[in-house]
């Protein structure tokens, strides 16, 4: 009896050992693809695309074990930077906004050239350009954001206002709104970077695309005429109270609330806000998206847009471990199936229907764009981006000398990038 019990026990042990062996062998045969992203793949409407991407890819690729790590903001950027500097513990893929930050990693040899594999994936040229550095494609950008003017159409209708197409008209609209106790623009300058969108447009409308392009290429200075004029206009609008009595104490979230509650008439920011401004649980206001007005006599055109990757992915040098798995992920990220889950961003993939009226308006503006300038703080070298937003924030101070501020910034650029020739 005892002997047979022992035998049964031994047999069970053997079966368990075999099962463990089989399962570990199966697990071992799976390739573990590590992806670092910003957002959690949860039920937050703003994370709908990431959730669909992570779940859909895992379901469709049983031979790949996807390890998606949501690092938040600025966690993603900080961790990526540290890992890239150490050149170890790199993921295979990381979420990237492209531009010079990605370029810095590429120059240091941390990224993997996937030009051959990705060049024919259908998508907008601007999005592909954003993930390209020195002629090599390192990733994909399924979503692209352009900056424009979010307009509270209910408020405009109440005061019989037309959406402005020129800066002069915009000033008249702002004066009317101000006279009626509505703050003309929501900005959220405490966070510094929100000031950038309107300033980029001002510079463009004064000096055209070349105003920034030349300064970036060091053919002109950052305190050149269009830059100074744009800063003076910004400061003038601040003095008039267009940004409210306390713009520097309010964060970007406060600016959103001002729009959502009808206390502000316009918000110049990126199209990533489409999902929220179209969400009835966030706002009961009817909000539209329009291109930034032109300046009479200025060089910039209505079809010049400021924009950048909204969601993008780039491959690190670790991608050479299993290029095929990485490319599969990139292709799925650019698939109609995954992109259709998105609730607000402008999709760069053809065939994906805009999820709401606001995104439709932003997408329509995007398709009309003849020239797109990338977000300055993503396109300039990282060594000069935080001084840029520090400088711009001070345009809202009534006593600030904007010319001196821009000259100081030019000195920072000269020190880090080189003098203007």
């Amino acid at each position, binding site marked *: 009896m005892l002997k047979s019990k022992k035998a049964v026990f031994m047999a069970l042990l053997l079966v368990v050992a075999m099962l463990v062996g089989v399962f570990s062998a199966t697990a071992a045969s799976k390739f573990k693809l590590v992806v670092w992203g910003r957002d959690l793949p949860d039920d937050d409407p703003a994370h709908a695309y990431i959730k669909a991407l992570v779940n859909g890819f895992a379901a469709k690729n049983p031979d790949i074990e996807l390890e998606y790590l949501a690092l938040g903001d600025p966690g993603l950027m900080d961790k990526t*930077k540290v890992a890239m500097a150490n050149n170890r513990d790199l993921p295979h893929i990381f979420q990237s906004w492209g531009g010079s930050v990605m370029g810095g990693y590429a120059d240091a040899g941390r990224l993997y050239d996937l030009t051959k594999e990705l060049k024919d994936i259908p998508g907008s040229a601007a999005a592909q350009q954003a993930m390209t550095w020195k002629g090599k494609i390192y990733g994909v950008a399924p979503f692209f954001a352009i900056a424009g003017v979010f307009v509270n159409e209910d408020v405009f209708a109440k005061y019989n206002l037309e959406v402005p197409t020129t800066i002069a008209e915009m000033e008249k609209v702002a004066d009317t709104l101000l006279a009626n106790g509505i703050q003309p623009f929501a900005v959220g300058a*405490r966070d*510094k970077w929100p000031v950038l969108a309107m300033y980029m447009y001002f510079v463009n409308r004064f000096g055209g695309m070349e105003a920034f392009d030349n300064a970036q290429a060091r053919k002109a200075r950052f305190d050149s005429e269009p830059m100074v004029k744009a800063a003076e206009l910004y400061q003038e609008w601040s003095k008039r109270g267009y940004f409210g009595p*306390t713009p520097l104490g309010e964060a970007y979230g406060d600016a959103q609330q001002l729009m959502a509650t009808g206390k502000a008439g316009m918000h110049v920011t990126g199209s990533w806000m489409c999902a929220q401004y179209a969400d009835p649980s966030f706002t009961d206001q009817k909000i539209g998206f329009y291109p930034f007005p032109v300046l009479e006599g200025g060089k910039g055109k209505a079809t010049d847009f400021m924009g950048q990757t909204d969601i993008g992915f780039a491959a690190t040098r670790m991608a050479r471990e299993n290029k095929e798995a990485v490319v599969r992920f990139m292709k799925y990220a650019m698939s109609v199936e995954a992109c259709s889950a998105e609730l607000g961003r402008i999709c760069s993939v053809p065939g994906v229907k805009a999820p709401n009226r606001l995104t439709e308006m932003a997408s329509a503006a995007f398709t009309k764009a003849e020239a797109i300038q990338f977000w300055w703080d993503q396109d300039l070298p*990282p060594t*000069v981006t935080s001084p840029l937003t520090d400088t711009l924030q*001070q345009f809202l101070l009534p006593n600030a000398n904007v010319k001196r501020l821009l000259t100081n910034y030019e000195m920072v650029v000269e020190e880090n990038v080189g003098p203007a020739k």
Partner: protein
Amino acid sequence: MVNKNAKAYSMIPEQFRIKKKRDWNALVFKAALLAPAILFLVVFMYYPIEETFRLSMTRSTGLGPTVFIGFQNYVRLFQSEEFLMGLKNVLLWAFWSVVIQIPFSFFIAFSLSVFKNRITKPLRVIYYLANVLPSAITAMLGRFVFAPRHGVIPSLANKFNWQWLARIDFLGNPDLAFWSIFTVATWAYCGFYIIYLMANIEQIPKDIQESAQLDGATPWQYARFIVLPMTSYALRIVSILCIVGSMKIFDLPWLMTSGGPGYATSTLGIVLYKNGFVNWQYGRAAAIGVVIFLLSLFFTIIQFSLQRKEGDVL
């Protein structure tokens, strides 16, 4: 005398003499006990300090080659408006911390120790509570109080129709932002100083207090002539902590204003973070780290040398 002893010692048979030889076992035991602490200091303190000094002499983005540039980072730092503002702000912060936070903490600690009643214990908890909150929560509460439009102050001001107060931008006005953050910091940090000083005040023997009372000393006189001198060492420790903490301050200004508007609330810690993690200038960031280290060291040495002069035992 010595010679006599030596002579007597030589007369003792050799097998009974105490051998004065090195006790290797004891030495190894002591070394083994000290080793973890020394190793910890070397690995986590001295090596990083040395590395920071070395890095501060280089131009490094962390990605490309690291180039030795001597003291260039330091020269550039002292030409940078942001760094100079950060330096000015931490020095001001240290000064006002010592001038405001320590007397305030002493006053509260003295009151809670000397005038004991039913609410003393709950009050201790209340004062210390702010200290146990994570700084992210403290900053959030600070923003909640000072935020324009919907903050506690503007809301109350609107309720009483004090429009002049409601219109003040506590975090967006460069002249006020520093003081708004400092107020929150005073609330957050004083809890620790209060508890520390209370522990020292309560160690003063009861009979001294009683004899002072018998001599007719008022509470003010008791505080001024007995408690203050007897807690001078604790007060110096608190001021060192205060000053060194001020040199390193980062969390509250960063979370409440990101160092703005402009550089109005920037600190050395913020400039370091931005240079290292935003601008990819690790060499420059390390140079700022060295400046913070040297400033902290300088103030600590000054404090302790003053103490030595006055005859306190360290």
